């Protein structure tokens, strides 16, 4: 990266001087030549040097992988699908934990229970919004159609979590589901006739 930056700087400088005076271009410096030239093959002696402990050269493996991917795209797709299914099912693992937490935290309106309920709402909603992003890694033209089902299951799982949150909010009495919640919108019946009293 730094090399290319330097090079750029150099070239602009070079162009600059060129615009000033039509001098013949000086030969590029050694390091530019080295940079642009392909890597020299390591010497025999160098190749014989064993890797330092803890460093594994993946040059060979890469090559192998490249060979396998290029060789079996169906296999990668299955692998991707497997991974995608794992991602889709991940929220379901949270359900029992969340359910227990919600059950244990009680129905009183306290800062902790409210915060937990908020988290419970935030997670699934964000998950649903970011569905495509979550599966972007596994998105290939070939897996595209197959991923649709996975996405639906993923969203369903998030909805189950959301339902858990709604259940909790309802248990806390925050949902306007009862008659008393709408009492303020009901008005007193007005009398059509009026009586005045003279009892004193």
């Amino acid at each position, binding site marked *: 990266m730094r090399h290319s930056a330097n090079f750029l700087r150099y070239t602009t400088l070079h162009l600059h001087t060129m615009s000033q005076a039509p001098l013949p271009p000086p030969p590029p410096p050694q390091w530019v030549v080295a940079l642009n030239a392909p890597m020299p093959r390591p010497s025999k002696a160098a190749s014989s040097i064993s890797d330092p402990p803890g460093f594994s050269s993946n040059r060979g493996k890469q090559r192998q992988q490249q060979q396998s991917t290029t060789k079996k795209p169906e296999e990668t797709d299955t692998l991707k699908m497997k991974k995608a299914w794992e991602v889709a099912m991940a929220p379901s693992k949270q359900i029992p934990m969340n359910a227990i937490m919600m059950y244990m935290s009680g129905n009183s309106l306290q800062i902790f229970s409210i915060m937990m309920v908020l988290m419970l709402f935030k997670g699934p909603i964000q998950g649903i919004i970011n569905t495509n992003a979550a599966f972007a890694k596994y998105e290939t033209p070939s897996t595209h159609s197959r991923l649709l089902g996975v996405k639906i299951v993923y969203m369903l799982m998030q909805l189950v979590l959301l339902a858990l949150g709604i259940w909790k909010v309802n248990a806390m009495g925050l949902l306007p589901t009862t*008659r008393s919640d709408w009492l303020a919108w009901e*008005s007193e*019946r007005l009398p059509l006739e*009026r009586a*005045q*009293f003279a009892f004193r």
Partner: protein
Amino acid sequence: MRLKALLFAACLSPAVAIYSDEVNHVDFHHALLGTPSPDSTFFLKPSTASNASLLYTLSDKLLVGAVNPRDGALVWRQNLSRSADSPTRGAGLLRGLDGNDALVGAAGNYISSWSAQDGKLGWEKRLTEGVVADIELLELEDATATSGIRDAIAVVGSDGVGIVRRLDGATGKTIWEHKDTSGDVPFQVSSSSTEVFYISLQSAMLKGYKIKVTALDPVTGQQTRQQVLNSDTDVTTPESVLYVGANSASPLIAWTDKSQKVLKINVIGTKEITSIAIDNTSGSDIRQITVHAPNKLNSLPHFLVHFVTETGSWAEVYHVDLRSSKVTNAYRLPYLQGQSVVATSVIGANVYFTRITEAEAIVVSSASHGVLARWDLQTPSSEVALHSVSEVVTKGKSLAVRSALFREHGDWQLVRNGQVEWTRYEGLVDAVAATWAETDIQEDLVHELEVEGHETLYGAYLHRVKRHVRDLQHLPDWLKDLPTRILSSALTDEVSNLDSFGVAKPVVIATKNGRVHALDTGKHGAVSWSVQVAETTQWDVKAILSSPGAVTIYPSDGSSVTLDILTGEIVLRTEPSDTPLHTIAVLSTQDSTSLVTAGVGADGAPVTALTKEDGILVTTSADGRVRGWIAEDSKSPVWEFVPPSGQKVVKATARPAHDPVASIGKVLGNRSVLYKYLNSNLALITAVDAKAKTASFYLLDGVSGMVLHATTQTGVDSTQPIASVVSENWLAYSFWGDVTADESSAKGYQLVVSELYESPLPNDRGALDSASNYSSIESLPLPHVISQAFMIPEPISHMAVTQTRQGITTRQLLCTLPSSNSIVGIPRPVLDPRRPVDRDPTAAEVEEGLFRYAPFLEFDGKWYLSHARDVAGIREVLSSPTLLESTSLVLAYGSDIYGTRATPSQAFDVLGKSFSKLQLVLTVVALGAGVTVLAPMTRRKQVNALWKA
């Protein structure tokens, strides 16, 4: 469960408790006595140890009271009429002696002795033989005396038998008794240092009375001698005798001839009658003659006779020669125009007379006519002084006097050396009607806002801009006041700052003697003005309406008087109508912006024409019927409610005019709703049957006259107070219930609360369901009623409900307790009829605030609005909303005047006293200072850190 109930009570109680630092800030109390009777009012030193004296009186309401002469505060007060059985003849009697810690009072057949210092009862006696005619204390202690308290001599009279009794001062036991069965009218008792004189009036042959004096031995009660004075030509009634002296060196009897030309004086114990010609130089007839004599054994035998004519008065001073019992004229206090009063005071043997005229006060000695001291009255009163008592104090040569003057329309004043020290408005004791007045400070603004409301948008905007520009002229004043305002708001407590929220409204009270008083509730109920509006003793005020800046008073004669609220000036007076009115209805117009009145005759028919907008007028008639009237027909009622035969309507109440309902339903524990039965036309009629001992309560609809709910209580004592009230969707009543044979009933005072609901089922709005309006004539569903009864420890004589601006605050049931002289505000949640009976509440019920029902409802000490005060004789309690939703004004009147503020759900919209504005300001200032100091330091540090990096 009991624990839960206790916890609930603990949560509830601060809501209604009055804190000790609120006393005298939120409330005021006029502890009144009534008109002090002239011969039972005196200054007295209750203890020999101290020179301090108190002012004692017995009023026409038979209240014995001790008043501190320094500030006019009531030291103690006792009611004799409570204990006296038989109707009393005129005023009662009160006697006391200096240094004797016992006052003896008598009313009817009841004699009692009270400790002069603290008003505690020494002894009491109810006589079976008759009525006490006179009572005196024996000043001289004799060998038979067992304690330091002086004995009393009482004269008891009944049907021609007169009994003279000596009662032991400490116990009230009879020491001896003298019976006079001659058929004379027992009149008075008097005593000298050696004898007790029983004075009776013997009927003469033709007409008139002869005065008979019987001398009795004070130790044994044996009759020593008897004299009959020939007074039958002059004395025609007992009232003709002007004076009978008591406890004096030379007790005397004084009377005049019929033409009031000759004054006749007899020194008691002698036979001679001294006749003195009255030298009337004033030219007009004598209206009143009063004799003022010292009432101490060791004082000089001098006395003063005060002559009052229509236009002026004068006085003659006489000396009695103790040896020869001759009466000689010493000197004369000159005739002066205008009314004056004279009072006697004694220091040692010297006798002083204090004469107070309209302009000055003078003190003379009985020995010579030289004026010892003279003061000009600083604030002359327009009211005529009726009588006075004085106390003279000498210090070397100088002399000071304080006189308690009772003026004609109920003002009791203490004048000290010409200065008015205090005034007690005893006329307020007969308050007949009261209301809160509205000052017109905001009236202009209201008018301007109204104008803006009716204009176009642009016009209104221009108007407002102009108004604000005009308001700028107040800016300099406002800026000038700003520092003091900030200072005062930071330093003083909240009380003075709440006045703009309508908690310090003036109170206007009309009294029976035709007087109107205005009380400033912001200044502990001080009387700001009092105006005599009508010259009467039976002013029957039916209604007082208040409009901004004025009050209009409607007495029963159909006239009206409008007074300015700030000055008490009479602005407008209308003439009385031909027919006296039974009731005056206060009608509010449809949009309830203004109030009008309509007179109602004795038969319940409206005298003044109704308009169609007034709707149906519901009245009670003198014969105990409830009738509804419409505008079209003022001859016959639209409907009539007649109670079943034998029952008599004793009381009718309706929902208060201002009774807003915040929520139309009651939310239950499971969050369902029980809908309230709300009907603005409810009337609660109480009818009693004295023979069958029942009380029936009928809940009527005022438009149709339909009985919505009726209940009958058996075993009711109709002579005991029955109070009732109806508000919102509930009603309450109390009565004395006795055990009736046929059912399990309770004996004692009971309080019954009933709540009305649309339907017994939750979430059900009844037959009309969600209809937005209803007609009482076409289809009016009946309410579902839930009732509960509580046993209460005391009778309730009057009930009212606290009113707040929007009805959000919990209501309190204001009950007047006549037997403990207090006013209690019972929180409504305690009186919930849905409290679970015989079981603990379920979780849902606990959530709703219900706790287990207990049949006995003890009045919690924290519910007492009157806390430690003795608020006596309350006839009516009024409540009024303020601009603060939490606060309701309460005014009680009848005998005492008591005003307070009730906060049934605590003062949730007011910063409490514990909130320190000063602390808040100081905290902000300190934080600001900290920021200004620390900000440069932090900045320097950050820059340094940047350089180091």
